[in-house]
């Protein structure tokens, strides 16, 4: 009986050892990276966000019909000096329209960050199977989200989601062409990456493209983040 108990005990230990060894840890779905090689060197990759569909709403948050131009998945914070910061969350697609990751855009205003009438933005793009990439830029205009008190509570309004923003254009480059007077300001810069993006630096541009203006005054369109990176720039 003792020998049987001992054998069974060792068998139990082995069951745990084998299970711990072969346990299938979760793996991320990976789409083929759509990267092209630029003619003068470097790798070019575009990331696409469709608004309003790719905005990630906060739990329980729904788009309110009377306020069709309101943005979900966004928040703003303002200090006593009037400097504002806004945060937005998105799903990110590749150029073949596959959802490959998530992104956040934080934009801020203030004397230490950007010239008057402009903002600076920090983009974080996370592609679970590939890592993360950090982008910063000075914006050509104030691209922060505004919060307004409505009958249905505090709501966030994104400039691009209002038809009035697009009266004389259907495409706008958000990335400033010149960095501005602030020392830290920059045109689009790929700051850092992790995992597959580790060691890559370079430049990027953010462009908003209008696709449709609805009768209710809301819009549909896409944000295109075009990155051009190289190792060890």
């Amino acid at each position: 009986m003792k020998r049987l108990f001992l054998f069974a005990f060792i068998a139990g230990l082995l069951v745990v050892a084998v299970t711990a060894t072969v346990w299938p840890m979760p793996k991320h779905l990976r789409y083929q990276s759509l990267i092209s090689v630029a003619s003068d060197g470097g790798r070019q990759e575009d990331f696409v966000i469709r608004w309003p569909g790719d905005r990630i709403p906060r739990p329980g948050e729904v788009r309110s019909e009377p306020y069709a131009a309101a943005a979900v998945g966004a928040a703003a914070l303002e200090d006593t000096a009037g400097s504002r910061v806004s945060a937005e969350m998105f799903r990110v697609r590749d150029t073949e329209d596959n959802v490959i990751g998530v992104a956040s855009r934080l934009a801020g205003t203030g004397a230490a960050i950007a010239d008057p009438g402009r903002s600076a933005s920090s983009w974080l793009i996370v592609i679970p199977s590939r890592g993360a990439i950090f982008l910063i830029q000075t914006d050509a205009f104030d691209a922060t989200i505004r919060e307004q008190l409505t009958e249905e509570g505090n709501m966030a309004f994104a400039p691009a989601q209002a038809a009035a923003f697009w009266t004389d254009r259907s495409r706008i480059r958000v990335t400033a062409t010149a960095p501005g007077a602030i020392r830290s300001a920059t045109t689009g810069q790929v700051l850092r990456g992790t995992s597959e993006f580790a060691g890559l630096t370079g430049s990027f541009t953010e462009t908003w493209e209008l696709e449709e203006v609805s009768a209710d005054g809301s819009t549909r369109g896409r944000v295109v983040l075009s990155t051009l990176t190289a190792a060890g720039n």
Partner: protein
Amino acid sequence: MRALVGLLGLVFGIVVGVGLVLANPLTWFDGLPPLSAEIAPSKAYLWDDYRGVSLSVADLLGVGRRDPDVSLAGPALSLVRIGIVVLPAGEGVPAALAVKVSVIAEENSLWRAQLGSHDYWNIFWPGEGSAFATGYSNYWGMVRDKILPPIGSSDLAADGYPISAPSPLRNSEGVTGAAGRYAGFTGEIRERLYPSASGKNTDWALALKANPPPVVPR
């Protein structure tokens, strides 16, 4: 009778085996040293307002059930959690708005006592500037204490779990200043998790230490 003894031995062996795996000594040596509270005071925050996975033990092991109310649409996002976080003001720094993204790490390993997520922060202080931060959170200690309470220390649960650990990727931790007066800063990140008894409304604390870039004489 023989079958009963065999079954008892097997069950006992499994229990002891699970205990040995959970009590992996690597967990005691694999944490990151805490940052000095004077240099990098912790900012407590709540992260209940999120979309995606809950980062429970089941999620980390890949057997969690997707909650349709908060799950992210898209098969590539099934192991991702994202949320907007407000970091409180204090110690001369204003409140900050941030987005935290956690991705369950593919490199997790039961033998190496690694059961965690890669975390990515995008933080902006109004009127001050912004920074990015990345780290790896290892929930192994918390999982061990949930399953084997006698081995875990009750002090740990009360003081919070220092979940920041060296990343299995070894190249992806740290703070990088982005805009404003934090441009060019580099530093370190530490996170601590305070689980509640119910497992809900868990509190987190974030400590960041960052230094300005070296001045290069002209």
